[in-house]
């Protein structure tokens, strides 16, 4: 919706292909944590309930999609600094809210003996994998370029 200000079959299909890596890394990270837990639920049901905990992120994305509807394509292409500040300010809250939801899930549903450790492990694998996939090639030359003149 940020790209064109509308939902269309073409953009939805393309978005699903483009960002499939996000749930893929999340699922991989969850599977690793699941293996370490007592597993009171079958994996499929546990994963389904785990992904329901993505609601904070979905609300956040929806809020910015709504904001995009009020911007002209020109403003969407070069977002005002205020908007970028808003993204930075709110993402911390969403990270915390989402972590709290997943911590509760690990503690109460998976009955994990150390929910905090599982949460950190899941976040480390899931977020790191996603960030490396999405930004890795862009960031790599910047890192190498600073080390090797």
């Amino acid at each position, binding site marked *: 919706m940020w790209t064109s200000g509308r939902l269309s079959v073409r953009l939805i299909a393309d978005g699903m292909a483009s960002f499939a890596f996000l749930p893929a890394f999340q699922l991989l990270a969850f599977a690793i944590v699941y293996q370490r837990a007592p597993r009171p639920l079958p994996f499929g049901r546990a994963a389904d309930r785990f992904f329901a905990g993505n609601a904070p992120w979905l609300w956040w994305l929806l809020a910015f999609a*709504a904001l995009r509807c009020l911007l002209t*394509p020109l403003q969407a292409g070069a977002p005002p600094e205020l908007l970028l500040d808003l993204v930075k300010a709110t993402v911390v809250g969403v990270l915390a809210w989402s972590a709290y939801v997943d911590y509760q899930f690990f503690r109460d549903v998976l009955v994990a003996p150390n929910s905090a450790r599982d949460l950190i492990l899941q976040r480390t694998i899931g977020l790191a994998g996603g960030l490396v996939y999405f930004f890795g090639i862009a960031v790599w*030359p910047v890192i190498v370029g600073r080390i090797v003149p």
Partner: protein
Amino acid sequence: MPRLVPCLLVAVAIAAGTFADRPSHNPPLTLGGYRVLAVDFHTHSSMWSDGALTPWGLVLEARRQGLDAFAITAHNETWDAHVGQRFSRLVGGPIVLVGEEIVRPSFHLIAAGITTTVTFMQSAAGAIDEVHRQGGIAIAAHPDAEFWEGFDAPAMQRLDGAEICHPSALVPELVFKEDVQRTYEIFAARAPLAAIGSSDFHGLGPMGLCRTYVFADAVSEQGILDAVRAHRTVVYGRDGRVYGDPALVQLAAQAGGLRDREPARDRAGWPDWVSRIAGLLGLAGLIARSRQA
């Protein structure tokens, strides 16, 4: 609320959005014996290049934005550009130039019309020489002051063009303290360079928001590359400013300008608004229901 209601709203949103999502058709334009082609030399796909659309998605989006050609310029690699080029040839889409954004801390350089990846572990002049050896053109990407050091005298002598219109320069009063457009103008004045407008498309805002009108001898990749080498370009920047070959700028003005050929940027039509409102309400309903579940 029954689950059917948000599902129906999303369906209405997709139907309205798909109805509005039609390619932009411009009749071919010839001015001064040249074919005028709208080109975006700087786009990123979602395949390891932090964009929002796949390489084939870029091809379809370019068609919707009325672009005759574009370059897929991933950071320091070219494979997604090859994918996009093959797909476009398969569906009869716009000309896709295999490109690369050669990124180093000291410069960002667009290579277009190349065949294989150019390593970033070299100076700007060395990278430009490699681009030329492959038959491509080299364009300074968003030449902000921090990159000027990388574009030293040997690099400036070798460059074919520089981005003078870029989304970051379009609304400086809202985005940046410095006048980005002025910075690009000063950079372009350092050497005789083709004026280039590029959207640096990552998924925010429209592809082709900034574009280059290339005056080509032929509607082909070679025709576009030759035109840039000969500086036969016209670019429309902020506040009605026009850059490029003065004779061609005048020719375009006599023809009534070229901006009429771009998709409307000022307001959305009713199908867009139906898609937005129904989509937002429907998705909100679905998220709320998923939490309840």
